[in-house]
């Protein structure tokens, strides 16, 4: 009979940010382990997490493992019997080794011929005997962002057992009965106060609200329903969604009582409301107030203090203005919530007073006067201080505004904003509120009376950090600062990327300590959306931008290669995230070296490419294009420059051609090449360029059907190779469309 499996790993408080991933992992790892243990399950493998428990439940798990049938091959049949018809010693030895009579051996067919074989059936063990291995697999299989040594080991021969936090109890029930299991403790730590963790039928309630008052009262359970109900009695809400709903409801009630509503930054997606359910087992909300004088602080400082530092929800009035009040989610339910309110108010007020002190002190020194102090803040040991970076970014932002964005009138503002962008790193407020770097610089610049273009460029220069088109900053937010902002934002990110690669820093696997991937995403997002963000239609290439940075930060060959590969990968990622077909993205980026690519141009091509990829002509060309490329790549050196126009040139490279199919292709090339090139140079109407290119399809097809390229006659062969090379070069300026061939045909 199938029975319920219930596992609860009782842990010391696990970081809230880990719980969403752990919830998924628990179910995935448990499923995989049950499968590996040949234990059939009926119904889903469910999982739950709170800061103190990781729970898995399977409605029904088979009572026994499925039997394992193995076929072991012995000697070939040809060597099984001697001339006398008796079994040979090797056949007898094989039978004996497997504990069967030679007569019981089977003959089976294998790719190598017919062999003697023995069929071994291993009867499945009772589940209660197989489940400990599932537990070991689960405990070892969970991945944590950071794991710790807590003097524990497991009996599986692998020894040391690291985990996210120490395990304090293990509820391990199958069909209501305890499955015996031990987490061992290191001999060096053994003492009366350090014991093995032994599985049991016991869970523990809320840390404080149950009567024993400490680790929570021990509660015996038999089934999952029982478990969940008893936890609720002991002040633990197991379902994360239930905790979230309770919190949202309580917040609403309290906000209304305060005459306002919860600030949107905290209530929205990925906001505080998504974080607090993972910090508590029994949520309730208390309200507090702070002195109204602090409302004179910048809103960003108030919300950061409340949301990021204290996990408090700010409250706003009907107009969206902050009220001098906050809501805190607690993990208890107390007789006198005002005690908690008063203490929370005291903590918040102290923090705001600090912020106010810094705010007043910081404004006594201008950003310009802070540049000198950046000399003491290290950017990177090989690249010097932030002062050096500020000076590089100043020059680079000036160049970007003037040349890359073709807005010389903005160059002076961009230079100034670039120079001051990091000056706030020397302010006390940013030292306390590191998440406000940039933002505070912008606010201080505004307070100093600097022009909108300058202060907004500073305020938003760390953005964008996300790649979606709607991610901040928006055109409306940027206002008159849009172009200046683009110059500074691009300059800062380029400087960081090129600088750190030149210093030998590379993101590897999950390690990216300098956040270079995010920097690259921000850079490409800006370049891809340049018209939407700034109203400009310029299309700077990656190569031109990198070349400009290299005047400040030279890259050696190794670093350049690594950076190019990294940037190509990141640009691919950004474009794929924008929803463009993976093959189209690859095609558009593969046509030319990264340096020649303009991210905006790539986007424009990707916008129209899907209109063509399905057409028969285009498919014809795509399929044939691989051949064109292969043949073309065999041609040595670039062709003469005179190939682009029709009749007239002294040495017409195609004069020896005579097959109708090749003459037709030459005619097509001669006719369409100027059109495609004009489009590419003007940077618009990519639809027309692709239409022109697609029209080559039937002609290329016919060429390959009728013409043999590698003929004996060197002049003729050279002319045909030349034709292929010209065609290949032209198409590659658009995209390497051989990447778009449907999977089955490529």
């Amino acid at each position, binding site marked *: 009979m199938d029975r319920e499996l219930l596992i609860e790993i009782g842990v010391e408080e696990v970081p809230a940010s880990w719980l969403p991933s752990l919830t998924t992992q628990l179910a995935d790892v448990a499923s995989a382990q049950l499968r590996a243990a040949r234990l059939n399950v009926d119904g889903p493998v469910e999982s739950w997490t709170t800061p103190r428990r990781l729970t898995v439940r399977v409605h029904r798990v088979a009572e026994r493992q499925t039997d394992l049938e193995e076929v072991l091959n012995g000697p070939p049949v040809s060597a099984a019997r001697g001339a006398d018809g008796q079994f040979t010693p090797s056949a007898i030895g094989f039978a004996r080794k497997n504990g069967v009579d030679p007569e019981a051996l089977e003959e089976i067919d294998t790719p190598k011929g017919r062999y003697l074989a023995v069929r071994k059936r291993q009867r499945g063990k009772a589940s209660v005997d197989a489940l400990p291995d599932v537990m070991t697999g689960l405990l070892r299989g969970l991945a944590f962002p950071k794991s*710790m040594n*807590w003097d524990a080991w497991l009996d599986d021969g692998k020894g040391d057992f690291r985990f996210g936090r120490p395990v304090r109890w293990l509820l391990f029930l199958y069909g209501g009965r305890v499955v015996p299991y031990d987490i061992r403790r290191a001999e060096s730590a053994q*003492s009366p106060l350090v014991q093995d963790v032994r599985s049991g039928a016991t869970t523990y309630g809320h840390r404080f609200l149950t009567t024993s008052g400490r680790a929570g009262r021990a509660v015996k359970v038999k089934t999952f329903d029982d478990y969940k109900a008893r936890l609720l009695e002991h002040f633990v809400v197991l379902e994360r969604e239930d905790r979230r709903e309770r919190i949202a409801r309580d917040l609403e009630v309290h906000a209304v009582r305060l005459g306002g509503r919860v600030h949107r930054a905290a209530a929205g997606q990925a906001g505080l409301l998504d974080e607090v359910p993972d910090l508590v087992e029994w949520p309730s909300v208390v309200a507090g107030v702070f002195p109204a004088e602090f409302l004179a602080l910048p809103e960003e400082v108030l919300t950061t203090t409340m949301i990021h530092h204290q996990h408090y929800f700010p409250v706003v009035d009907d107009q969206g203005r902050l009220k001098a009040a906050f809501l805190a989610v607690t993990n208890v339910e107390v007789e006198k919530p005002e005690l*908690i309110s008063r203490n929370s108010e005291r903590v918040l007020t102290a923090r705001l007073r600090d912020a106010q002190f810094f705010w007043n002190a910081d404004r006594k020194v201008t950003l310009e006067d802070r540049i000198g102090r950046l000399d003491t803040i290290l950017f990177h040991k090989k690249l010097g201080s932030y002062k050096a970076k500020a000076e590089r970014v100043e020059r680079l932002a000036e160049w970007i505004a003037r040349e890359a964005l073709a807005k010389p009138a903005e160059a002076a503002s961009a230079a100034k904003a670039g120079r001051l962008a990091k000056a706030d790193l020397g302010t006390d407020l940013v030292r306390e509120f590191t998440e406000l770097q940039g933002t505070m610089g912008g606010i201080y610049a505004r307070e100093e009376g600097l022009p909108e273009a300058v202060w907004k460029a500073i305020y938003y220069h760390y953005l964008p950090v996300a790649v979606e088109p709607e991610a901040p900053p928006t055109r409306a937010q940027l206002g008159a600062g849009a172009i200046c902002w683009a110059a500074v934002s691009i300059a800062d990110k380029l400087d960081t990327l090129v600088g750190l690669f030149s210093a030998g820093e590379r993101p590897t696997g999950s390690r990216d300590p300098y956040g270079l991937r995010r920097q690259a995403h921000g850079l490409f997002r800006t370049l891809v959306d340049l018209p939407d963000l700034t109203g400009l239609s310029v299309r700077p290439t990656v190569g031109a931008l990198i070349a400009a940075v290299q005047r400040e930060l030279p890259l050696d060959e190794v670093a350049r290669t690594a950076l190019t590969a990294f940037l190509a990968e990141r640009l691919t990622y950004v474009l794929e995230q924008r929803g463009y077909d993976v093959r189209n993205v690859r095609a558009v980026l593969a046509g030319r070296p990264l340096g020649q690519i303009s991210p905006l141009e790539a986007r424009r091509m990707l916008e129209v490419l899907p209109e063509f990829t399905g057409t028969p002509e285009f498919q014809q060309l795509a399929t044939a294009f691989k051949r064109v490329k292969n043949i073309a790549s065999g041609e040595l050196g670039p062709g003469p420059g005179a190939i682009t126009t029709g009749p007239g040139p002294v040495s017409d490279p195609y004069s020896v051609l005579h097959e109708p199919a090749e003459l037709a292709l030459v005619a097509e090339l001669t006719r369409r090449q100027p059109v495609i090139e004009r489009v590419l140079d003007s940077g618009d109407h990519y639809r027309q360029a692709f239409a022109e290119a697609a029209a080559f399809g039937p002609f290329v097809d016919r060429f390959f059907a009728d013409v043999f390229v590698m003929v004996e006659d060197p002049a003729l062969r050279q002319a045909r190779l030349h034709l292929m090379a010209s065609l290949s070069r032209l198409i590659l300026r658009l995209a390497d469309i051989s990447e778009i061939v449907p999977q089955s045909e490529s």
Partner: protein
Amino acid sequence: MTFQDLIFKLQQFWAANGCLIQQPLDLEVGAGTSHPETLLRVLGPAHWNVAYVQPSRRPDDGRFGENPNRLFKHHQFQVILKPSPDEVQDLYLQSLEACGINPRQHDIRFEEDNWESPTLGAWGIGWQVLFDGLEITQFTYFQQVGGIDLSPIACEITYGLERIAMALQKVDNVYDLEWAPGVTYREVRLREEIEQSKYVFGHVDGVSGEEFATHHRDLFERHYVFGQKLLGSVLVWPALEECLKCSHLFNILDSSGSIGVTERTAYILRVRHLAVAIARAYYESIKPVEVEQA
């Protein structure tokens, strides 16, 4: 509960739970972790439970006595439990109850906060303990010290005494704390805070910034070189003291703005180098004990 009562209660509690009560290190340090009772004793196999108060100097936090929450010097109550008992969190909560905090009437949380000290080659996993939103304790399972893996793992509990006392006495300004019946923190410490802040920020009449920096750099060099010599003779305790003096001198140079960025990194590396060498020398010297036990 006065400030001194809080100390008495914690000492009694931890003494009753098997801790030896040590005394503060009689040197300038930034935290109780620098005390050899922590820094050295957590290394190696010997079980060891100890508690002590440690006055802790943070030159950068000096505020001339004008800030109600920040101090040049504050007081930590430090507990080291090696190995860390299974019920260590409960023990900690009982200690709060012993100080008059009822965990059922407040919101007490263990929120992720790992600890790392690059200059000591040390790191650990743990939490900050929040009491109604106020951080009152740092709770750390040490993993490495001096680049050496710990076995068994030691647990460090560091109480911020001023903060806990302020919460218990419900005062908003640290100087309003009652240290002893009828005696305020202001009377005991304010003048010291003002004068120490002036000193570490270089507000010294007739002493130029350059002279200030030269004096402290010079002291750093002397202590550093001598510390290396002491270490050469495996005089671990005295060498550690020289190292801690260097660390403090570096903090003063840093807060007074006397050093630039490249130099700053170089100073940190030198302190780390010495601290790690000291930890290793100590660890090597206790190895025979380990062999004896095995």
